């Protein structure tokens, strides 16, 4: 009986449907288009049937339907991956349950599965705002859980809820902070999501696309002061294969050995912590030559950092770098970076000339930088398209390009001049937030430059710095003309207020990622150590707090019991008609006064007589029922009592 009534409640069904819709939205990355369409259709059907008050669909039909859909999901398993398959099946189970909901225990199962799915959303989303949204969905689910076990008539008891929250919140935080953290137990399937950030190939247009993306790539906290901007070259990729048009990461580097480089250099002049955003790539970022890092990332011999699995959620790691350039690892590396591609005859010619003029590689690079500086080269986000001999066309014809054009051309010239050179992809600079003390590096800070071999050391050379020094010293915006800057800031982003809000949100998000997402076993151990150190102080303050609370409670109790011996009924009466009763002479009993009033104001006769009768019942018979009725009556006749009061006052 009770269960049937409960499941008839529209708002419960609607809240479940809403939860499933939001789950669908949150998990949309995990689903193909047709999967989303199927779920949306099923849910829409359910909503329609709720609004038209139709009965649930028969279980058999739903089972058959769900079976067919599950089989199609299974056939797509290869494509979707195990994790996504699991999510699909779970959501399917929840939706099918909702379609054929008939019994209370089914509703309980539904709520259970919802909890699990809501938690799974956090695998895909860790943004603060989305996390807040997910917690909201969780709260709705918790409420529906409560409704399943509470009488349908009752309201939420807010004071009890508040008191429970007061217990839950500290308990929750304490568990989060103090409960031991374990390393992963086993390998788990990862989500198949398109990767973001630098890719393994660098063609003339790839970085231009990247810089229009305003999203965050990573954030850095420095242990010391912020290094000068000219040193902020975050290396992420080495492009060593050139086919005449595009650069590619060498196959050797792609499956680079995972072993950590020996800590040969002891000079680690720069120590910093990087919080990388999810990129679904293994490649990470470091300055110059990383010497040591925290255990969750690896340093390859060529000075690149990587994690052992694609970064699917924010990753925080500590690095210390030496500012010295990267050293040559093997002879093979040099040969690899001397290979040239056919084509671009003018460039070849130019390189030979330079080589003859400047036999020393260092001089040659200087001359090349001078060439870029002296000749009319332009820095632009929208370079004209280049022909088949792209380097020739860029160097001698258009002379307008972006960092990847300059880096690519310089590396090709150096290779033709017999100097081993490669293009490095990464990020340059970043946005320093002095109050929060971190450097935010966004995708738009993506940059490409060159490293050439000199005395067994890979010297960095940034041709862009010669063309547009503002780009390096200030930011990309200052290096671009006004018209192109608009490309970076489409529409609403230019509004100052929104900009400010975005900024504040980003700072909040920073604390979120440092304190919530980045809280790991190291920080936990630190916390334990601090707690232990301040143990006496904490104990004293807790004891002091408790004693204050106890004293306050005692005081409250004493004052309460001291003054409070007016009966409940009299209190109620005074609450509603205090002002009218103020004219009562002290010798007259309340009920007698009321009867007098009734005689004097016949308009209120009925109400007052009723009141008096109930009042006497409640006061002298100590009848709880009468007290309740008295309360009700007072509440109902509030307006009438007001009129009575005015009449007494005017008389």
């Amino acid at each position, binding site marked *: 009986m009770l269960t049937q009534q409960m499941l008839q409640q529209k708002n419960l069904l609607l809240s479940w449907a809403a939860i499933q819709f939001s789950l669908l939205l949150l998990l949309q990355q995990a689903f193909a288009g047709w999967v989303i369409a199927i779920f949306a259709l099923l849910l829409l059907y359910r909503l329609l049937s709720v609004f038209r008050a139709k009965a649930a669909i028969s279980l058999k039909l739903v089972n058959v339907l769900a079976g067919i859909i599950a089989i199609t999901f299974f056939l797509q398993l290869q494509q979707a991956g195990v994790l996504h398959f699991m999510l699909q099946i779970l959501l399917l189970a929840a939706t099918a349950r909702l379609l054929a909901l008939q019994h209370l225990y089914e509703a309980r199962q539904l709520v259970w599965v919802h909890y699990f799915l809501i*938690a799974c959303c*956090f695998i895909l989303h860790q943004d603060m705002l989305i996390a807040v949204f997910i917690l909201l969905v*969780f709260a709705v689910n918790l409420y529906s859980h409560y409704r399943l076990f509470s009488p349908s008539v009752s309201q939420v008891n807010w004071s009890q809820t508040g008191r429970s929250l007061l217990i839950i919140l500290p308990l929750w935080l304490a568990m989060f902070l103090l409960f031991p953290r374990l390393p992963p137990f086993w390998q788990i399937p990862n989500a198949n999501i398109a990767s973001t950030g630098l890719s393994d190939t660098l063609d003339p247009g790839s970085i231009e696309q990247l810089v229009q993306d305003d999203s965050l790539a990573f954030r850095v906290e420095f242990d010391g002061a912020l290094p000068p901007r000219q040193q902020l070259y975050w290396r992420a990729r080495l492009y060593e294969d050139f086919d005449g048009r595009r650069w590619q990461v060498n196959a050797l580097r792609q499956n680079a050995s995972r072993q950590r480089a020996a800590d040969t250099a002891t000079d680690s002049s720069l120590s910093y912590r990087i919080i990388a955003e999810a990129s679904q790539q293994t490649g990470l970022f470091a300055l110059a030559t990383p010497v040591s890092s925290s255990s969750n990332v690896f340093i390859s011999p060529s000075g690149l950092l990587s994690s052992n699995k694609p970064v699917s959620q924010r990753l925080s790691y500590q690095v210390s770098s030496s500012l010295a350039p990267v050293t040559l690892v093997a002879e093979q590396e040099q040969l690899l970076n001397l290979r040239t591609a056919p084509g671009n005859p003018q460039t070849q010619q130019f390189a030979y000339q330079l080589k003859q003029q400047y036999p020393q590689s260092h001089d040659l690079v200087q001359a090349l930088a001078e060439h870029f500086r002296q000749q009319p080269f332009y820095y632009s986000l929208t370079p004209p398209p280049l022909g088949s001999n792209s380097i020739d066309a860029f160097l001698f014809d258009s002379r307008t390009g972006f960092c990847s054009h300059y880096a690519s051309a310089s590396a090709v010239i150096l290779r033709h001049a017999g100097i081993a050179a490669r293009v490095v992809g990464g990020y340059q600079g970043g946005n320093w937030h002095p109050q929060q003390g971190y450097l935010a590096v966004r995708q738009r800070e993506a940059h490409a430059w060159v490293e050439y071999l000199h005395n067994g050391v890979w010297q960095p050379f940034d041709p862009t710095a010669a063309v547009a020094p503002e780009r390096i010293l200030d930011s990309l915006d200052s290096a671009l003309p006004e018209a192109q800057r608009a490309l970076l800031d489409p529409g609403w982003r230019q509004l100052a207020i929104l900009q400010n809000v975005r900024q504040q949100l980003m700072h909040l998000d920073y604390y979120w990622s440092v304190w919530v997402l980045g809280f790991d076993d190291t920080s936990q151990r630190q916390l334990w150590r601090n707690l232990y150190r301040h143990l006496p102080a904490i104990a004293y303050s807790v004891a002091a707090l408790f004693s204050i609370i106890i004293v306050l409670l005692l005081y409250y109790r004493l004052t309460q019991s001291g003054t409070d011996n007016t009966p409940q009924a009299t209190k109620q009466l005074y609450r509603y008609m205090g002002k009218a009763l103020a004219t009562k002479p002290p010798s007259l009993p309340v009920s007698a006064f009321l009867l007098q009033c009734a005689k004097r104001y016949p308009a209120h006769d009925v109400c007052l007589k009723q009141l008096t009768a109930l009042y006497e019942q409640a006061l002298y018979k100590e009848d709880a029922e009468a007290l309740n009725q008295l309360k009700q009556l007072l509440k109902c006749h509030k307006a009438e009592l007001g009129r009575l009061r005015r009449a007494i006052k005017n008389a």
Partner: protein
Amino acid sequence: MPNLTLKQRLYQRYWQLLSRYLDKRQPAADKVRLVQKLIFILPTRYGWWFVLLITLLYLLGTNYQNNLILLLCYLLLSVFLVNIVLAYQNISGLTLQCKQAAEGFAGEATTAAVNLSDDKKHLMLNMHFVQPDNTNDSDTRQNETVLLSQPATTATLNLNGTKRGKYALPRIKITSQYPFGLWRAWSYIALAQHYWVYPNPDADKSAVNISSVDASQQAKTDAGETLSPYRAGDSVRHMVWKRLARDPANPVVRQQYFSAQAEPSWVVVPPLSGDALERALRYACRQLLQLEQSGSSYGLKLPALTLPQAKGPQHLQRCLQELALC
């Protein structure tokens, strides 16, 4: 009880052990207030599922090294733990009292009114009497769900009595899963009260047949004329010996229409035993009810006791109680 399944037998054994423990912990009292020492709390089945959920989320969070999943997991865990307190609060402080002894006829459902009172609200309380002796308790046991939003309510609970008599009120099991159904807080309460099971006036077919005959007609018929098969407890003096000699397999007795028929305002139960006594009591019960309905005054003569003639519901109750005790 011959045909009890193993499960039922085990349950009875368990209940015996438990009652021995409970009798020491909470001897029967007129008015019982649910305090900490009377309340038991353990997770429900859904609660165990919830524990599984928390474990799964912990594994998920740890494996993905995902702090947010861990946060959610700890949130659920703290909700789970706080629920112990909430479940306790929902049941504690409740005062139970059974002011009137329940009464009913054998084989019929008897209801007992239990008064519940407290200053604060209690929601979704579930109550029933624990009567493991009843073999068919699962079908007849009806749970009473009480929402206590007023300071006092009365719950009517079903009792099962198959045999007449005066019994002590069995323990009341009062359970609550209130806020989230994760924990079951329950208590077994013994109230110092008894209940009466009177002989059933309608249970026996033959008794019905007999009583359908009009009293005046009965007076006319000779006592020795009706014969009926012998049943255990029938007086040997009524045996038809001649017939027994002819057919020893089917002994027959003369059906006695007791001398009470001659004096209609007296209900008489002759000194019998066994099944015959039961039949006589059922018949007497029926007679008492009829007499009370007709408004005449009547008395009851039992082998050991005589209740003088009177009328009114209290007199009827007194008579029925004596029948139950006979």
